């Protein structure tokens, strides 16, 4: 389920013109970890250009968002339960971690949160 969701991510994001517009100042690669699996999401001016599945040997990324498979499944539930409804609800509860260069994340926070939540409607 997780793999299917992330493999659709580029299509879901790029089909949303408002979301792409909000991300137009962001070009970076960030890491999403779903349990033991790592994914690199590359964004160019708000469009997701690539989603690659790890393992990776030596790859750079700006920031990382890590959570268990179960946490992502709860996060992507159509109506998530309290504590699983937001990235920072999950970090406060110890269900997710955010690390790395936080500036591109914080400067584009609505965009990144919307990208990560995008599968919610499709899940």
């Amino acid at each position, binding site marked *: 389920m997780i793999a299917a969701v992330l493999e659709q991510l580029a299509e879901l994001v790029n089909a949303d013109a408002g979301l792409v517009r909000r991300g137009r100042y962001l070009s970076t690669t960030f890491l999403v970890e779903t349990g033991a699996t790592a994914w690199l999401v590359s964004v160019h001016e708000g469009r997701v250009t690539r989603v690659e599945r790890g393992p990776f040997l030596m790859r750079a990324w700006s920031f990382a968002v890590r959570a268990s498979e179960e946490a992502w499944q709860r996060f992507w539930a159509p109506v998530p339960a309290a504590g699983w409804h937001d*990235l920072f609800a999950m970090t*406060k509860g110890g269900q997710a971690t955010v690390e790395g260069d936080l*500036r591109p994340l914080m400067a584009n926070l609505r965009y990144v*949160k919307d990208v990560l939540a995008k599968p919610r409607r499709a899940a």
Partner: protein
Amino acid sequence: MADLEPIVGRYVRMTVAGRPHRVYFEEAGQGLPLVCLHTAGADGRQFRHLLNDLEITRHFRVIAFDMPWHGKSLPPVGWQDEEYTLTTRGYVDLIRAFVAALALERPVVLGCSIGGKIVLELARLHATEFRALIGLESADYQAPWYDDTGWLHRPDVHGGEIAGALMSGLIAPQSPPETRWDTLWMYMQGGPGVFKGDLFFYRADGDFRDRVAEIDTTRCPLYLLTGEYDFSCTPADTARTAEKIKGARVTIMKEIGHFPMSEHPEQFRRYILPVLDDIRAGG
């Protein structure tokens, strides 16, 4: 015929901490005064649904003011050389000055988040001045959910955009899009550094763990209502606070986050109307 709402907005001149202020407020209704305190980095528009609720305004004179630096209340003269910081003392003084400026007699005070936290201090220090106190998303302490409030005020991150993006998570997923985005717009409109300045009170100065046990609810009833989706001030934070205050009445609100009156007014009124009825009946 113009489609006018019953809300009227005015400015009142008052002195706070020895400095003249011009404070904007909106009001509607008649009866017992009900003063509403908005959340950090926002303004009194959060209460527009309460102000437009005829079930409430036929019994209460609902009044919501914008704190100085917020909404339509300007900062005091000389602000350009200052860093805005809200303190417990300054917030208590502001509320009491506003009540005095309008000559309100023993009002009910309803505050949310920072406003919910400060009612604990009003209850402790000035209980006899109030008919009842209502704290929404209120606790004596709540653990922070991000390390550095500096993100809210720096030149390379847009303060309004990040405030809206952070607060979006504190709104329950069930809240309707219209009121969700109204709520976030208010956050996006805050002045530079103002949200951060309010959070000094919320996160640092307003740690009341050592003093809430002094609150005597026989002098003034205290109601605490918290949304289940609020991970800033959690239901557990409110419950833990209430355990130390004999007589505090706690309600956990379903399908609500950190901004009950603003994010989901229909759901909120299910919880607040019985509280207001109880207060009218004498608490």
